[in-house]
């Protein structure tokens, strides 16, 4: 479904990704963990070309882009395979919740407006915002905005949804509602890649967990393997700071 081969990315002399190989099966939920600055968000953003990898190959749903010299149409085609949920939500500020969700359907996928509207309303109801259709992002709480963001991503019916720390900028009391929505769609068999700091959530929802540090994959495996019997010293160190219930111990 998704295959990354030797993805490298440098900013000037600083190499952020040092050759990442990764493959994700259809319907799999993958959590990417790692300390700040480890390159996990960069890796995720490379998958839809919001960051340009310096080298490597990306394949999503049978479409391959060679990162050496991709054409504009390659990048565009690759982006259409995925959707992204952002840390800062990034809802279109001048559009209502409903318009945010409809935008991709109408403009990119050319779905007739009425049908797009119906689909979008259903999705917003699914994320529990059926009563906020006409609200602008500035009128919604962080948790609500992020749920609109998830509905916007779902609307495109993408092959994979990329979550970039979806709860990191939320108040603790709003994290729950967003995680509940992600949990719900994870059960529907949509392929998802989630960069997160929510250890407990990763353990619960992901089928596969990857630990990244310093631009390389240190360890990967099932949540049980990684959380309960990590092999690498670096992984153990990192996980030590989190207690099993997902809260921090300092």
């Amino acid at each position, binding site marked *: 479904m998704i295959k990354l081969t030797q993805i490298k990315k440098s900013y000037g002399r600083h190499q952020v990704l040092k050759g990442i190989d990764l493959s994700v099966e259809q319907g799999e939920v993958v959590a990417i963990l790692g300390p700040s600055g480890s390159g996990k968000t960069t890796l995720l953003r490379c998958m839809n070309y919001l960051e340009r990898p310096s080298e490597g190959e990306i394949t999503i749903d049978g479409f391959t882009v060679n990162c050496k010299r991709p054409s504009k149409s390659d990048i565009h085609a690759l982006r259409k395979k995925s959707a992204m949920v952002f840390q800062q939500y990034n809802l279109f500020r001048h559009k209502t919740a409903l318009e945010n969700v409809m935008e991709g359907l109408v403009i990119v996928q050319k779905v007739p407006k009425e049908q797009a509207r119906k689909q979008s309303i259903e999705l917003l109801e699914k994320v529990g915002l059926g009563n906020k259709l006409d609200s602008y992002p*500035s009128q919604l709480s962080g948790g609500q905005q992020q749920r609109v963001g998830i509905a916007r991503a779902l609307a495109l019916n993408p092959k994979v949804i990329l979550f970039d720390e979806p709860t990191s900028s939320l108040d603790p009391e709003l994290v729950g509602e967003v995680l509940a929505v992600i949990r719900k769609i994870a059960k529907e068999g949509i392929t998802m890649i989630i960069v997160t700091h929510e250890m407990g959530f990763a353990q619960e929802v992901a089928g596969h967990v990857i630990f990244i540090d310093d631009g390389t994959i240190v360890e990967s495996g099932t949540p049980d393997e990684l959380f309960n019997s990590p092999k690498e010293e670096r992984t153990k160190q990192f996980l030590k700071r989190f207690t099993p219930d997902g809260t921090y111990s300092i």
Partner: protein
Amino acid sequence: MKIDLQFIWTALIELLSVVPTTLAITAVSMLCGLAIGIVVALIRRYRVPVLNSVAASYVTFIRGTPMLTHLLIIYFGLPVIIDSLAVQFGWSFRSVSIPMIGFAYISFSITAGAYLSEVVRSGLQAVEKGQLEAAYSIGMTTRQAMGRIVFPQAFAIILPSLSNSTISMLHGSTLVFTVSVVDINAKSQIIASSNWKFFEAYIAAAIIYWGITILIERLSALLEKRINIYNRGGVT
């Protein structure tokens, strides 16, 4: 000194006939200037090779020279260029058939374009990067993302500056008297000199300019309120 209030009124009525001229110069220059400004801002944002340095030179040269100088250079230079081209290519068109106001349109559009390109650039920069990324992430092309997501927000941001520029252009348009276009200011001079009531005639012109300015301010405020509806905030 005695003020002839009656004459101010008379002058005011007479001046109304040339209000369309002033408005046309202001509107055409601002609209064409905005179009130039958008193109220049995009060239500079995407650092289009060659054009980028041309655009940068254009902006610094035009902003570094007075609007009156632009008008005079266009007025005296453009006919020479057009006529020599016409001879060379055998066109029947000659510069004398360009109406005087045409020079004002061209020159002021060039002036406004330079200033507005900076306004547009600041607006584009003020739109969060995440907006463009979100547009890309749902599969939009750059054109769609700019047209539907970035520009509408940038426009809302620069609206106050645009209204400012429009008012500047309204007042700057008085320079057209140098190329014998009769606008409000020129007309007030004509009225004044034929009646020897300079003070009254200029007061009348000032009142009209002020009135138009207030109108622009009101319109802009209305538009701003409407366009910025999404920024009002407050959880519903």
